[in-house]
């Protein structure tokens, strides 16, 4: 059997496992018919919040625990990780939402207006309470993908469009639905805004019973605004209703967004399993890494480490739900 490992898919899952395998001395072939990272990857549209504790609001325990490995992995990989924590706020009449969020998460401090004025002054005008998750971080997804692509390339692994030469690790995301019937798409829509008047330095989530949103600063006055979550594998352009809801809500977060320029409106579908937890699966002679849902950048490092343990040392990962032997 060939000692080459062929990774299919150069999204966040494929690039992280390829990186992890190369670090451990494996021979890797990276294949993506679309070439390098771009608009065809759903990770291209991601928020890049490394916020395991906030995600605990709705995600199950493994997401919170495994997500805590992300920050150090991305730093080691050379990505530009900003460790400034994250904030959660709610408008006055939705205060109950903030208490609910607090009950379901850990790792935060409650901030009064005075404290909020010190760390994120522009929010303190409109928000007198916030939750501050000080250990969380964020990255710029496109920059992070390109860092991985470049380091792989320096290690001699370039993204090919050829046929697999070795044993396959399948990281094709939603395209792997042909072999993973329980995988589904969860549509997300986002916008990229240039708002030099806005002064926010860390990710902020605005809780709202109907239209919760988040913003992630990308630097130079650019903010990513996300994201809808719709049960659909539609990858087509964003719908007006969704965009109106997102833009309305961000204006409520900080009216200075009114003057923002809309640089991009994007949409794609996230791959997810029925419990919204990721899986490593051994079947049809392949190892699959999939179902990262809205946690691509958060969970890809932990999954890459576990999948490398499986591929190189035959160590069974905790997120493996099917093992059909041969690989």
């Amino acid at each position, binding site marked *: 059997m060939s000692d080459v490992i062929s990774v299919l898919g150069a999204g966040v899952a494929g690039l992280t496992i390829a990186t992890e395998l190369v670090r451990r001395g494996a021979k890797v072939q990276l294949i993506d018919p679309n070439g390098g990272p771009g608009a065809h990857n759903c990770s291209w549209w991601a928020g890049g919040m490394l916020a395991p504790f906030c995600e605990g609001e709705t995600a*199950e325990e493994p997401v919170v625990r495994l997500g805590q490995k992300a920050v150090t992995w991305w730093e080691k990989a050379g990505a530009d990780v900003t460790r400034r924590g994250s904030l959660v706020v709610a408008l006055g009449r939705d205060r109950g939402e903030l208490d609910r969020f607090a009950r379901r998460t850990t790792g935060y401090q409650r901030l009064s207006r005075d404290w909020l004025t010190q760390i994120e002054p522009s929010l303190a005008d409109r928000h007198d309470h916030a939750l501050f998750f000080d250990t969380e971080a964020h990255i710029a997804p496109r920059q992070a993908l390109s860092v991985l692509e470049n380091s792989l390339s320096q290690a001699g692994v370039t993204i090919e469009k050829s046929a697999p030469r070795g044993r396959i690790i399948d990281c094709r995301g939603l395209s792997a639905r042909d072999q993973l019937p329980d995988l589904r798409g969860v549509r997300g829509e986002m916008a990229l805004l240039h708002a030099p008047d806005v002064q926010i330095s860390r990710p902020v989530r605005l809780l709202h019973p109907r239209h919760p949103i988040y913003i992630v600063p990308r630097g130079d006055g650019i903010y990513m605004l996300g994201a809808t979550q719709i049960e*659909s594998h539609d990858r087509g352009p964003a719908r007006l209703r969704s965009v109106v809801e997102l833009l309305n809500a961000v204006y409520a977060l900080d009216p200075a967004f009114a003057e923002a320029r809309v640089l991009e409106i994007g949409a794609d579908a996230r791959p997810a399993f*029925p419990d*919204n937890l990721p899986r490593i699966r051994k079947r049809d002679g392949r190892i699959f890494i999939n179902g990262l849902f809205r946690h691509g950048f958060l969970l890809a490092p932990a999954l890459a480490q576990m999948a490398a343990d499986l591929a190189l040392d035959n160590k069974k990962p905790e997120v493996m739900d099917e093992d059909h032997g041969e690989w």
Partner: protein
Amino acid sequence: MPVFYDIDIPSRLMLGTAQYPSPRILTDAFRQSGAGIATVSLRREGGDGAGASFWQMIRDLGVAILPNTAGCHSVREAVTTAHMAQEVFQTDWIKLEVIGHPDTLQPDPFGLVEAARILTEDGFKVFPYMTEDGILAGRLLDVGCRVLMPWGAPIGTGLGLNNPYGLRSLRAQFPDVPMVIDAGLGLPSHAAAAMEMGFDAVLLNTAVAKAGDPVAMATAFAHALQAGALARRADPMPPRDMAAPSTPVIGMARLV
């Protein structure tokens, strides 16, 4: 147990399918609670087949499906959505929502009657989401509705039965029409109270989906509905102002 348009429903609990933490939790909530009807919104996910895996999961629940026109603000939008839903789910049932105000999400009674008339003529079996107004109820029955769904409180508020007088009055005016309390319930006690008033079922979404443990909350609602319906059948005592001892006081021993 309720009968809607000649169909026997095995449970008084009807659940919406939005906002759950994951489809698996949604499925478990249905299974554990024994909910008898699933409502689904076509509007958001689109009828173009892109939501197919989600729809399949709803079908796999094995319960009756009641598509809705959630988020429709006009008669035309609601009628179009109903026809799309009929194609996707192969059912002539439609939960008709015509929203009158974007903030309060309260039903538009005038548009509702008009849309119900059109859809009934088109062969639909309409479940109208309505205020507790008795005159409106009469108009909806006139245009062919045979089930009514008065609200408890505005959608997603969890306030419970906001106008108990109005709901009791509605129930009393139309004693033979199956009625579902739709929207606004937050706690199982609200559902039990609705059963004690003589309503046939409740429809919930947020109260279950947004609970910390949706599966447990759905089950709690199912128990409350059972308790309330049993209490209704047991003919509760009438409330009174004066204390009435349950054992005679004459001849009590004097323990001095």
